[in-house]
C-alpha cells in the first residue's frame, strides 16, 4: 500500500501555507519517485502547529510542524517518511498532550480521515448512527437524543430533543431540517472545522434528524465568510447523493432525505434562527416574533428543526453509542462534551473537545499556554461578541452553561478570546455597541437606535464628558436593551458592555485622551443606493 502523508486542507491551515506545503510534498514524491500520496485531511485543531504534516508509520501517525514549503525537501532528506528525527518532529500525533488530554466525540474523525472519502468515513465508525436510527421508531430516536442531554451548541443551550419532539408531534405535509452554520461569533471556528474536516458527520446527523421528525428536506445555511467550507460541503453532498446516502432511498431504507447548502450574505443576525429562516426564504434577515416557534411554523411556514452544526454533528455518535454513553460525560445540566475554541491572544490556540466542567483557567493555561504575546492576561471574552468580559479573578469558572449564567456571562458556542494587558475595556465596550449598530436587523427600536446611542454615550464617557451622568445613562440604556429587544443581539449586547464596566472600572475612569490620540474606528460605511 502506498504511504500516506497528511497535509490539512482546512482553511485555517491553508491560511498559513498548507497549500504550498502539499504541493511541495507532491513535487518531492514525483521527483524522488516514491510510492506515496498526499491526503488533505481536516485540521487536528492545534493551530499553532499548522501546517501540521503527518506521516503514516507502523507505529502510528507521526507529526511534524509547523512545516513551511521551503522545509519540505529537508524533511525528505532527513527521512521523515521513516519517522526520523527533525527539528519539526513532534512524535506520535495521538500522544501530543494537547490532543491526548481531550475527549473527542463529535470531532472523533476530524483531522484523521480524508474528509471526502466516504469509505474512510464508514471505516471510522461513520453511518453506524444512521444504521441504528433506521431500526428505531421516530419517537425512539427523539427519545434517545433527549436522554443524551444534548443541548443546542449554537449559544442558547436549548435541549435538542425537546425541539425535535415538537416538530415530530406537529402534523404537516412537509417538514424541514435546517442547519445553522452561520458561525458568526468571533473566537469560534468549530463549525467550520467540522464542515471542512468531517462533512459527512453533519450530513449523517441531519439525515437522522430528518427521519426522527419526519422531514424529507434539509438546508445548511452557511455564512459567506466560509467559501472553502461551502465548496467542501457541496462536494461531500454530491458524493453522498452519488453513493445513495442522500436522495429518495437513503441507504436502501426506502426513505427520502434531500440536502442543499445555501450561502448567507454577511449578516451576523442571520445566526438567530428566525432571521436565518427569513434569509433562507429569500427575504431580509429580520427576526420574527416568537411564538410561533420555528418547530411549529418555521421554514416556508412548515414545522422546522433548526440546530447548530455541532449539535447535529453530535447526533450520529449518540445514536451509535447510545444516550447513556454521551450523558456520562459532563457536569450538572451540561451533558456530554463541549467544543472549546481557544482564540485571540493565546499561545496555543485551537480546538479542545472536553467534557463540560473544565475551568476557564485550565482551558487557557493548561491547554492554551497563556497569552501569545507573553504579557499578562487581563480579560477573557467567552461566548462571542455578546458574551461578557471576565477578569482574571473569574478564571476559575467552570465551562458550563449554568456556571457562566450565574456570573452574568454566556458560554455560547464555546469560543474563548483572550486579551493581554494592552486591552482597553472602554474601547471593547464601545466596539460591542458599534458591532450591534452595524449588525442590527432594524426590527426593534431598542437595538436599532439604542446601539447607536450606546456608541455615542460611550464616546462621551471616554472623552470624560459628564462621565458620572453618562455612565448612569448607559446603565439605563442597557436595561432598555435587555428588557425591550426582540432577540438576543440587542438583548445580550449589554453583557460585554456592563461586564467591562463592572470588572474593569479603571478603564472608564482615565483622563480624556487628546483628540489626536483618540481615533475611534468607524464601521464600514454602507453605501446609499441612488
Amino acid at each position, binding site marked *: 500500500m502506498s504511504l500516506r502523508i497528511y497535509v490539512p486542507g482546512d*482553511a*485555517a491551515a*491553508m*491560511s*498559513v501555507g498548507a497549500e504550498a506545503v502539499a504541493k511541495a510534498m507532491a513535487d518531492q514524491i514525483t521527483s524522488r519517485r516514491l510510492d506515496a500520496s498526499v491526503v488533505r485531511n481536516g485540521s487536528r485543531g492545534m*493551530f*499553532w502547529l*499548522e501546517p501540521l504534516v503527518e506521516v503514516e508509520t507502523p507505529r502510528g501517525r507521526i507529526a511534524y510542524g509547523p512545516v513551511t514549503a521551503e522545509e519540505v525537501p529537508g524533511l525528505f532528506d532527513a527521512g521523515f517518511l521513516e519517522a526520523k528525527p527533525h527539528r519539526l518532529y513532534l512524535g506520535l500525533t495521538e500522544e501530543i498532550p494537547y490532543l491526548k488530554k481531550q475527549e473527542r466525540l463529535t470531532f472523533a474523525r476530524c483531522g484523521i480521515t480524508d474528509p471526502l472519502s466516504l469509505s474512510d468515513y464508514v471505516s471510522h465508525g461513520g453511518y453506524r448512527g444512521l444504521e441504528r436510527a433506521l431500526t428505531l421508531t421516530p419517537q425512539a430516536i427523539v427519545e434517545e437524543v433527549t436522554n443524551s442531554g444534548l443541548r443546542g451548541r449554537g449559544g442558547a443551550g436549548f435541549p435538542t430533543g425537546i425541539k425535535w419532539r415538537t416538530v415530530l408531534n406537529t402534523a404537516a405535509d412537509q417538514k424541514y431540517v435546517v442547519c445553522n452554520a452561520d*458561525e*458568526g*461569533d*468571533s*473566537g*469560534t*471556528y468549530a*463549525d*467550520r472545522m467540522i464542515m471542512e474536516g468531517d462533512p459527512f458527520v453533519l450530513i449523517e446527523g441531519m439525515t437522522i434528524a430528518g427521519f426522527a421528525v419526519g422531514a424529507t428536506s434539509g438546508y445548511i445555511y452557511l455564512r*459567506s*465568510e466560509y467559501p*472553502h467550507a461551502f465548496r467542501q460541503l457541496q462536494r461531500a453532498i454530491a458524493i453522498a447523493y452519488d453513493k445513495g446516502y442522500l436522495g429518495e432511498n437513503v441507504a436502501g431504507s426506502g426513505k427520502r432525505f434531500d440536502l442543499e447548502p*445555501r*450561502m*448567507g*450574505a*454577511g*449578516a*451576523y443576525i442571520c445566526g438567530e434562527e428566525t432571521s436565518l429562516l427569513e*434569509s*433562507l*426564504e*429569500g*427575504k*431580509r*434577515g*429580520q427576526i420574527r416574533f416568537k411564538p410561533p416557534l420555528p418547530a411549529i411554523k418555521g421554514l*416556508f411556514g412548515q414545522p422546522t428543526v433548526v440546530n447548530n452544526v455541532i449539535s447535529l454533528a453530535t447526533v450520529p455518535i449518540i445514536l451509535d453509542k447510545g444516550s447513556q454513553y454521551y450523558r456520562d460525560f459532563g457536569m450538572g445540566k451540561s451533558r456530554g462534551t463541549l467544543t472549546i475554541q481557544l*482564540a*485571540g*491572544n*493565546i499561545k496555543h*490556540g*485551537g480546538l479542545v473537545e472536553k467534557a463540560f466542567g473544565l475551568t476557564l483557567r485550565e482551558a487557557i493555561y493548561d491547554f492554551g499556554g497563556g497569552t501569545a504575546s507573553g504579557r499578562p492576561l487581563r480579560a477573557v471574552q467567552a461566548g462571542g*461578541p455578546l458574551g461578557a468580559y471576565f477578569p482574571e479573578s473569574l478564571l476559575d469558572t467552570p465551562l458550563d452553561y449554568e456556571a457562566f449564567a450565574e456570573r452574568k456571562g454566556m458560554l455560547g458556542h464555546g*469560543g474563548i*478570546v*483572550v*486579551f*493581554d494587558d494592552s486591552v482597553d475595556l472602554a474601547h*471593547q465596550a464601545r466596539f460591542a455597541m458599534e*458591532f450591534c449598530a*452595524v449588525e442590527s436587523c432594524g426590527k426593534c427600536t431598542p437595538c436599532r437606535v439604542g446601539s447607536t446611542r450606546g456608541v455615542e454615550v460611550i464616546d462621551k464617557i471616554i472623552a470624560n464628558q459628564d462621565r458620572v451622568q453618562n455612565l448612569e445613562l448607559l446603565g439605563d440604556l442597557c436595561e432598555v436593551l435587555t428588557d425591550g429587544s426582540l432577540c438576543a443581539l440587542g438583548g445580550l449586547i449589554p453583557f460585554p458592555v456592563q461586564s467591562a464596566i463592572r470588572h474593569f472600572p479603571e478603564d472608564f475612569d482615565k483622563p480624556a485622551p487628546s483628540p489626536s490620540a483618540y*481615533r475611534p*474606528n*468607524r*464601521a*464600514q*460605511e*454602507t*453605501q446609499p*443606493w441612488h
Partner: protein
Amino acid sequence: MSTSQGWDADRALARIQELERLPGALLPILHALQDEFGYVDKAAIPLVASALNLSHAEVHGVVSFYHDFRHEAPGRHVLKLCRAEACQSMGCEKMIRHVEDRLGVKLGSTTDDRGFTVEAVYCLGNCALSPAVMLDGKLYGRVSSDVADFLIDDAKRHS
C-alpha cells in the same frame, strides 16, 4: 473574482433563469449576479423582481440589507480585513490602519486606481491565527502589517 466586463442584461437573465425555480431563490440569484459582475447592478432589480414575482421594493430591500451585496463594481482585488474581537486582541486595528494608509483608502471603499476594494469583516473563523484577512476569497492568518504589505505587493504583481 469576477472578470468585471460590466453589466449585461442577457448574461444577468441567464443566471436568473438558472436559479429562479429554487425555493427561496432570491439570495442564490443575488450571489450569482455578484459572482458574474462583481456587484449587483441596480438594473438587475426589475429583472429579478419580475422573475420571482416580487416588487422592486422587496428586491431592493433584500439587496441593501446584506453587507455582502455591493452596489458598484469592486476593484480588481477585494481585501477583507477582520476586525472582530479575536483579531483585535492580536492588534488588527494597527494593521488595518497601516493598510488604509498604505492604500490611501478607508474601509468600505476602493482605491482610485481601482486596484483594491478594502472591506471590514466581522470574523473569518480563523481566530486561533489572528489577525486574519481574506484576499480575493483566500484566507490568510497571522497577518501583521508586513504580511499585509506582502499580500498587497503580490496581488499587484498578478493584476
